Each structure stands twice: as structure tokens, then as C-alpha cells.
């Protein structure tokens, strides 16, 4: 059926990159979330200066803090991956190297998010 589609129909909403504007939209959405979450996190960390391990664990265990941290980890690694993807697209012109780096960035970002969320969850649920 697809051969009956006009070129305009195929391109509409997708553009030449085949992914349309999701990338742009996700970058702005995660950025907006991070304005709140990262500012909160900075204040959270600054409030913990000089506290020992038990105090820090107790602070992370508090439900809203744990929720905030998980939200931060998701938005932060997502945003970082999007940003690094754009930088790699702009400066890496060797397609094999670009593929390797893009894959590495995605895997490391997901790994970082999983590790962070696992740690926060385990602390919050009593380790």
C-alpha cells in the first residue's frame, strides 16, 4: 500500500531524519523538569553538608526525597543522552565511530539511571 502514498504523506511530521520533532520536544520537556528537579537537588545536597552516613540515608529515605531523586535521575540521564547525541551528530562524521559512540552514550545513560534508581529505591525501602 505504501507505494500509493505521496512523498508529502511519507514526510509529513517526520522530516528527513524520520523522527520528526520528538527529539526537540523531549529535550525541552526534560529541561523544564530539570529546572525544578535539579534546583531542588542542589538545595537538598547543600542541606546535607557535614552530615554523616546515617543522616544522609535517612534524608534519601524520606518518601518525597526518594521520589524527587528518582525523577531527577530519569530526567537528568534522558536530557544528558539527548544533548550528547546532538553534539556527536554535529562533530563525529565517521559513521562507524558515530554509531559506536551513540550506542555507548545510550547504554551508559541507561545504566546510570538504573544504578541510581536502584540505589535510591533500596535505601528508601530500608536497604
Amino acid at each position, binding site marked *: 500500500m505504501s507505494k500509493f502514498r505521496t512523498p508529502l504523506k511519507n514526510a509529513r511530521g517526520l522530516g528527513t531524519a524520520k523522527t520528526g520533532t520528538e527529539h526537540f520536544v523531549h529535550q525541552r520537556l526534560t529541561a523544564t523538569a530539570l*529546572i525544578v528537579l535539579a534546583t531542588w537537588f542542589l538545595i537538598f545536597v547543600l542541606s546535607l553538608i557535614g552530615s554523616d*552516613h546515617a543522616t544522609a540515608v535517612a534524608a534519601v529515605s524520606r518518601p518525597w526525597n526518594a521520589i524527587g531523586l528518582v525523577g531527577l535521575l530519569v530526567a537528568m*540521564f534522558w536530557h544528558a543522552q539527548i544533548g550528547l547525541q546532538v553534539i556527536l551528530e554535529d562533530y563525529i562524521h565517521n559513521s562507524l565511530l558515530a554509531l559506536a559512540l551513540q550506542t555507548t552514550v545510550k547504554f551508559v545513560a541507561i545504566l546510570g539511571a538504573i544504578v541510581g534508581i536502584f540505589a535510591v529505591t533500596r*535505601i528508601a525501602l530500608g536497604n
Partner: protein
Amino acid sequence: MATRERPLSPHLQVYRWQIQMATSILHRATGVLLAFGALLIAASLLALMLGPQAWEHVTGVAGAWYGRAFLFVWSWAFGYHICNGIRHIVQDFAIGHSISAFVRSAWMSVIGSLIITSLVWAWVLTQGGAA
């Protein structure tokens, strides 16, 4: 064929430095630094989960001179990226697109980042500086 270097379009090196270029480049540079910082946040949370001994490593590194130096640069990178990020979001709404507005908002990002960095470290120093 094609043994001669092809002409290139003008790139960064032919332009006089201006603040809009600096803010754009810094946004990317601080973004890369913050991406590495994200990994450090995840690693620190893992250390917090693993116990007091692992956590002591984190606070030990954060308290050392090189840790302090990194935290200082990191805090500025955060302050800059969030100020300039807000600037970009405002510009996405087609606000402030005149050249003079671009220059003004660029300087606001730079000054904002310095204010955030000063506030953070003023607080750290009043807390006795223990990380």
C-alpha cells in the same frame, strides 16, 4: 580528480569573538561536564547504599582539594547551564530575538551563573566547608 582542497564555508576561526558565540559553546561544554556529573551522582547514590565505608570514599574525594576544585567548576557549570537553558526556552517562545536582546540575555546567563556559584559557595563556607 578532486586532488585539490575544496573550498569550505567560513567557520568559527574567521569570526570576531562575540558573547553569543561564547554562550553557545559554553552551553555545550557545560552540558558535557554535567553529563559526567550525572554519572557521579548515580555513583554517589550507589556508595550511599553500599554503606558508611563506601560513603566515606565519596566524602573524602569531595573534601580533597581536587574534589573541591571539581565541585566548584561543577556548580558553576550547573548555574550556567540552567540560566542559559532557561534563556533558550524563553527564546523558543520567539521572545528576545533582536541582536541587542541576544547580547543582553547572553550576559544575563553569564552573570546569573556567577551569582548562583557565589551563593552556593557562600553557603558551603558558612557550613564549615565539610562536604
